[in-house]
């Protein structure tokens, strides 16, 4: 779990980049495609909207779009204005300061607390005692014995490899 806490690399990033999840940052810094794909994939499991993560890095466009929509809506529905404005404001604030939990955790500096204090970090279950990882084919789900050299995905047969190459290879890092 300690590995997941953003350390040095995050701090050196500009504030814009900091919005991207830490695993993604690690992935981008890594030269190994397979590692990148694996990390990005884990990160994607915690996202709310599949494509939002990509947008977040350049979200100015999105902000202004939203603002226009908001203004438009207010003009049209002045009767209900109080509510709309408040909701619009909430959505704007939400976009302006999207502090992720990882950032909040980082600022909380829990590592500085004495060892005996139970914290979020110390409650992490930790690695498995026997880590015999099983591999399932990314295409069909059955036991997989082959690995894609480009992205590290697993597949079970030539048929599945073809499908993988045609449709999904490197999807998580492009």
């Amino acid at each position: 779990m300690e590995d997941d806490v953003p350390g040095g690399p995050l701090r050196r990033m500009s504030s814009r980049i900091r919005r991207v999840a830490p695993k993604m940052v690690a992935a981008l810094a890594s030269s190994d495609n397979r590692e990148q794909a694996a990390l990005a994939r884990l990160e994607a499991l915690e996202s709310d909207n599949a494509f939002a993560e990509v947008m977040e890095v350049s979200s100015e466009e999105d902000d202004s779009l939203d603002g226009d929509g908001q203004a438009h809506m207010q003009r049209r529905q002045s009767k209900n204005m109080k509510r709309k404005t408040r909701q619009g404001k909430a959505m704007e604030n939400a976009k302006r300061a999207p502090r992720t939990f990882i950032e909040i955790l980082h600022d909380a500096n829990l590592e500085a607390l004495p060892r005996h204090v139970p914290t979020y970090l110390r409650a992490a279950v930790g690695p498995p005692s026997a880590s015999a990882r099983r591999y399932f084919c990314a295409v069909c789900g059955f036991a997989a014995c082959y690995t894609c050299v480009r992205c590290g995905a697993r597949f079970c047969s030539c048929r599945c490899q073809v499908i993988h190459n045609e449709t999904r290879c490197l999807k998580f890092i492009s």
Partner: protein
Amino acid sequence: MSSSSGVIVLDNGGGLCKAGFGGDRDPVAVVPNCLGRPAGAGGKRWMVADQLLAPEVDVTSLALRRPFDRGYLINTDLQREVWDRVLRGLLHADPAHTSLLLVEPLFNIPSIQRATDELVFEDFGFQSFYVADSPSLVHLYEASRCPALATAQCSLVVDCGFSFTHAAPVLQNFTLNYGARRLDLGGKALTNYLKELVSYRSVNVMDETFIIDDAKEKLCFVSLDVTRDLHLARRSGKDNPFKCTYVLPDGITCTKGFVKDKDEAWRFLSSRDVQSLPLAATREGTAHLEDTEKAKDRRIDLTKNEFNMTNERFLVPEMIFRPADLGMNEAGLAECVVRAVHACHPHLHPVLFESIILTGGSTLFPQFAERLQQELRPLIRDDYRLKIITQEDPILGVWRGGSLLASSPDFEEMCVTKLEYEEFGSARCRRRFFH
């Protein structure tokens, strides 16, 4: 106010917000703790909480904004919107004359606690406020129903929710924080994993959180023998006990998705021959021929309005038991339970192992308890008894415990009042909650 009790009980989860009045059996509202709006044209207005559940709302491609990230409240602006809708719109509550019992996640971060206090006292102006954690409430509720638990005064609560899973020991109604262990997997990650599998294998559903959530809840189960079930899932047509179809909404005849032939989808659970089938009986030869057909089917077809599921049905919940399969360097649920117990005094070990309570929506997968039992048994001493208690309604378990606590005679004394908050500030008031 619609109830005799002046206490609002709010189990504010990352996925669902459960709200109602202390003393009642069930909450008034169980609604998504998020805002959403349709992706296409006409999606100007954000719908809040229950508005997303309205029958006429087409849940296709909703963009979602949640106040929670990884199980913690990170966005009070969004939370205010949801609470406003729930408390004023659905509960018709008057916070100025009401106390609030709020359920917070374990190990909440001080800055988040401060922001929460502000929301409760400054934005909503509640009269008084109490913070509880879910394991102690679940214990309280189950102990009120089961005399043995009440006598033992301790239990191990496994809460498998939306954002994460905790195994937490509870002793005399207090959660032993030093024993609690967290697995960073919950319902949200499982839904996203299912999205990924379905998108990869049949139809692109990466934007369909609500729909795939529904498919997961209605079709996924925990396997008691993955190797055997993988073999069974290779069979063709009617011989495949797990094959089932989920129909996507088309926006015209239906706005919600549904399972095609639900009884057929679950027939295998009751049919003995499937459960006891030896591996040799699966027809490897034909299975391979048929894989070629399947492989062709699996090319993505964007026009399809339904998708089939076979091994995805059990490979998805499987991740809770084997996160390593996903590439996560975390122990599975059984080890998580054992580590939580072993963090406690040895005197407690045998009692905790025989009082494991399952709660949280992700424990609803069929065979969840059986699988945990199966994996735990070899990990604990032979002379210890192992008992897993399932809740009648694991989604409402925490809320019902809160309702019970809120209706106890000394509840008001446990609260922090608005005056105290204004005088002493957040940090000092928080100390009263023993966190």
